[in-house]
């Protein structure tokens, strides 16, 4: 249990480390921002140091760096195809940022910035706006044919077009909420079961302790999976915007 005592939600509390106030806007440097910076630094360190002495036959660290690169590259190639190449830097950064955020969150006493909807929703909206702009730039006004389902008679258009628009607008919501909800639920559950270990004592605490161990494994899986899902959906959206079907 962190400083929050028995409250399983205390781990998500935002603390101001360096208060900064500009006019009416509070842009304090918080623990969330600190962990984001930490994630960025650790990603850079991981990639730079593991590729510094790159050899033809890769060592352990170089293998890991190449594996993560290839994983995202293949994902993008399989979903978008060759036109997706120029979006690789963005998709790769996104994947690594979310993955490291989730994984750093698995370290006890750390802070999981991806468990805040402000963070995940901001990323989702950035993806959504970017993809919409790509679609508009590539196809112009033809982009709006996206909302007219083919093979549907004109009589049904007034019904179908609002549904399609809602469906399109729900993308950033589902993208952001999914990551936030999974991480928050998982971490809260971990804390609740860890609380049982303490309150049930030495004998009774064995069962919840075993549960916490199993849950930790599951959470690591979810941490990876959520980064993967966010990335592959981004790839799908980019594909939609480029190809329009």
């Amino acid at each position, binding site marked *: 249990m962190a400083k929050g005592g028995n409250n399983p939600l205390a781990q998500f509390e935002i603390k101001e480390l360096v208060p900064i106030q500009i006019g009416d806007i509070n842009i304090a440097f918080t623990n969330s921002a600190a962990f984001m910076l930490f994630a960025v630094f650790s990603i850079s360190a991981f990639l730079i140091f593991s590729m510094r002495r790159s050899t033809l036959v890769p060592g352990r660290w170089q293998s890991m760096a190449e594996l993560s690169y290839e994983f995202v590259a*293949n*994902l993008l190639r*399989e*979903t978008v*195809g060759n036109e997706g190449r120029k979006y690789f830097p963005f998709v790769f950064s996104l994947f690594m940022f979310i993955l490291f955020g989730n994984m750093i969150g698995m370290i006890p006493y750390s802070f999981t910035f991806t468990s805040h909807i402000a963070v995940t929703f901001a990323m989702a909206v950035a993806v959504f706006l970017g993809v919409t702009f790509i679609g508009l730039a590539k196809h112009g006004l033809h982009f709006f044919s*996206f*909302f*007219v*389902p*083919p*093979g*549907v008679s004109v009589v049904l258009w007034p019904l179908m077009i*609002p*549904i*399609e628009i*809602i*469906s*399109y*607008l*729900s*993308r950033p*919501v*589902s993208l952001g*909420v*999914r990551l936030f*909800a*999974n991480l928050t639920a998982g971490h809260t559950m971990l804390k609740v079961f860890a609380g049982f270990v303490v309150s049930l004592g030495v004998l009774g605490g064995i069962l919840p302790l075993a549960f916490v161990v199993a849950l930790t494994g599951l959470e690591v*899986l979810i941490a990876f*999976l*959520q980064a*993967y*899902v966010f990335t*592959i*959906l981004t*790839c*799908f*959206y980019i*594909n*939609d915007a480029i*190809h329009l*079907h």
Partner: protein
Amino acid sequence: MTLTSNGLIVVHENKNLDQLGLLGDKLNKVQEEAERKLEKAAPEQSIRSGLGFAMKIGVELISALIVGTGIGLLLDHWLGTTPWFMLLFFVLGSVAGIMNVYRSVNGFGNTIGFHPITDSKDNGYKKPLK
């Protein structure tokens, strides 16, 4: 076997052909083994993408509902027609949510509109992810 140099060359060629055949057999064997290994690995991969799929689908339903109802509430707020737009868009939102799920399950991908995926490169679920 003939003693002429030409004959010897012919024999050599036959030998080479035999070796080539052997090599071909070997290659086929290795290839089959690799394919078998890939098939063995496939269930694990389908579990991974299946889990990803399951994570995806629940939120899909809810988010369209939230967006639909939100649009309805906003329109009501602007036009002062409480609660009619909210009711209308609640229904539209739930329809959109169900359509989202339907599309994902049927392998239409996450596209807007009823576009079946014609080219296989489009689909992350059918193909094993390498």
